[in-house]
């Protein structure tokens, strides 16, 4: 009679537990700090290097000599310590982990707040800081407070131009930016089964924008099929009757295209209300919406047309990029006049490759629109891929047409 988080962590909500982790990963930003902390801890030998991953995604390829040197040091450490490294161009850590590394029932920690993305597989996946990561490298385990769970009970089916990102924005708007702090979100109900794995990853990804520790789906037939495609055998998870802290019912049929306006992720408007907002840049990508389905959806809308504004498209991983090339999707995106970047986080965190200037406005498919995040004085609106595509063609925020 437990929530999925309670089942995986093996204790009831509210308890503190020490648990071995199955997978722990860090990226080029947090990995550098974790390495420093490990050095200060005086740890030489890691007990389980096979459970660790380093993924270079935040500033790839390196933008300055300093960044390149930091990455070179970490690359060398990965080699010496025997940690598998996904180097520049391999993709965003959460996406790389979603391509056959993470399986249902695992305990996964990542030194990145969006590690909750991997809850889409029925894993308990949560973000930690760099020093916590160093201690996990050193010991193979960490402590958790087993979270209470808020259920998002999904019914019906997304329709019209609405896509999982619109649902994610609706969930954040419903709960607020701290509505689920310290809690797990569990996506349940008949509606959950109608959402593709790429869509579930989008929903789990944005759980942290409500303060949640993770956003978890039960593994079902779709999960098993997706993982089989990555060479992994998995079984579905069967929900138990359990006690949720509260249940929020969401009717998917009522979801329409939404936009989060500056500078809060939970200030969400119907796209129609902000239609006509002038744009200087459109950005499609990130751990929220840089997957194959996203690129394919974008291409379907811009195919044979030209974007009216600077539009960056950054695939979430090399395998997403390769698939988009093979399917002809990438050619359509390039021919529409978009800039295609190498797989990684791109300008999401304002470090490189698409930073905004003072007063510039960007419509992004990312997960955060915090003040100045993509550049000082820049404004960020968040939307679905379809809204981003329609808006890129018009040069202003535009409600997408029903496909």
């Amino acid at each position, binding site marked *: 009679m437990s929530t999925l988080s309670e089942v995986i962590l093996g204790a009831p909500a509210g308890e503190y537990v020490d648990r071995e982790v199955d997978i722990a990963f860090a990226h080029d930003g947090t990995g550098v700090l974790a390495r420093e902390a490990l050095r200060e*801890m005086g740890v030489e030998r890691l007990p389980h290097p096979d459970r660790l991953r380093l993924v270079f995604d935040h500033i790839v390829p390196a933008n300055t000599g300093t960044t390149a040197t930091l990455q070179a040091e970490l690359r060398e450490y990965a080699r010496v310590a025997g940690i598998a490294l996904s180097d520049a161009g391999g993709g965003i850590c959460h996406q790389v982990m979603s391509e056959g590394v993470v399986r249902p029932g695992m305990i996964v920690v990542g030194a990145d*707040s969006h590690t909750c993305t991997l809850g889409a597989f029925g894993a308990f996946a949560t973000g930690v*800081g*760099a020093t916590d990561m160093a201690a996990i490298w050193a010991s193979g385990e960490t402590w958790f407070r087993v979270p209470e769970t808020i259920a998002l009970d999904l019914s019906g089916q997304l329709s019209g131009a609405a896509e999982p990102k619109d649902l994610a924005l609706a969930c954040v708007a419903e709960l607020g930016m*701290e509505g689920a702090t310290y809690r797990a979100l569990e996506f349940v109900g008949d509606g959950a089964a109608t959402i593709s794995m790429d869509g579930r990853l989008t929903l789990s990804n944005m759980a942290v924008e409500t303060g949640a520790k993770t956003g978890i789906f039960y593994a079902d037939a779709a999960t098993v099929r997706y993982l089989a495609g990555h060479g992994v055998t998995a079984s579905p998870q069967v929900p138990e009757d359990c006690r949720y802290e509260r249940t929020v019912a969401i009717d998917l049929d009522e979801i329409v295209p939404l936009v989060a306006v500056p500078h809060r992720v939970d200030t969400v408007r119907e796209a129609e209300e902000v239609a006509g907002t002038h744009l200087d840049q459109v950005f499609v990508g990130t751990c929220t919406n840089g997957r194959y389905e996203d690129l394919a959806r974008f291409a379907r809308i811009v195919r044979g047309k030209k974007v009216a504004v600077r539009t960056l498209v950054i695939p979430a991983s090399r395998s997403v990029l390769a698939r988009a090339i093979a399917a002809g999707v990438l050619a359509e995106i390039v021919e529409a006049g978009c800039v295609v970047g190498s797989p990684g986080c791109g300008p999401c965190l*304002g470090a490189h490759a698409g930073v905004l200037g003072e007063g510039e406005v960007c419509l992004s498919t990312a997960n955060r629109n915090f003040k100045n995040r993509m550049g000082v004085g820049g404004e960020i609106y968040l939307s679905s891929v379809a809204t981003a595509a329609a808006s890129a063609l018009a040069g202003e925020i535009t409600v997408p047409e029903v496909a």
Partner: protein
Amino acid sequence: MQGTGPAICLGRDIDTDLIIAGRYLRTKDRSVWGEHVFEDLDPTLAPRLSGSVIVAGRNMGCGSSREQAVVALREAGVVAVVAESFARIFFRNAVNVGLPVIEASVACTDGARVAFDLDSGWVEVDGERYPARPLSEKMVAILRAGGLVPYWRSSR
């Protein structure tokens, strides 16, 4: 564990991008973070932080897991952070770098004298005492050691 300092009052939902911007993350030189802390929120704040206690509203430290945010506050000389509530990764990071974090609802005015006692579980603002939410035993032990690195070294 006790401390005092003048209050610097901040609002709610202060995200870690506002504490230390993404453009300053690519270095191992911690002094850079102390220098640029809160730059995009209020560039006049950094030089005033030494010896102070930050008093924030709800959801302090939301957003990115970047540990540079708590290190920046520590480097700038912040004694402790009091907030009505914290985002969980920020909270854990603060404990891990030895920066006291105190969850309490207090009335704040800039410059008010803040005192806290983590062992007894209270915080005072200009003599007015408020209860603080207790930390887990492990968190208290980590804070007392000065952070997770010294805690680790002393427990091996």
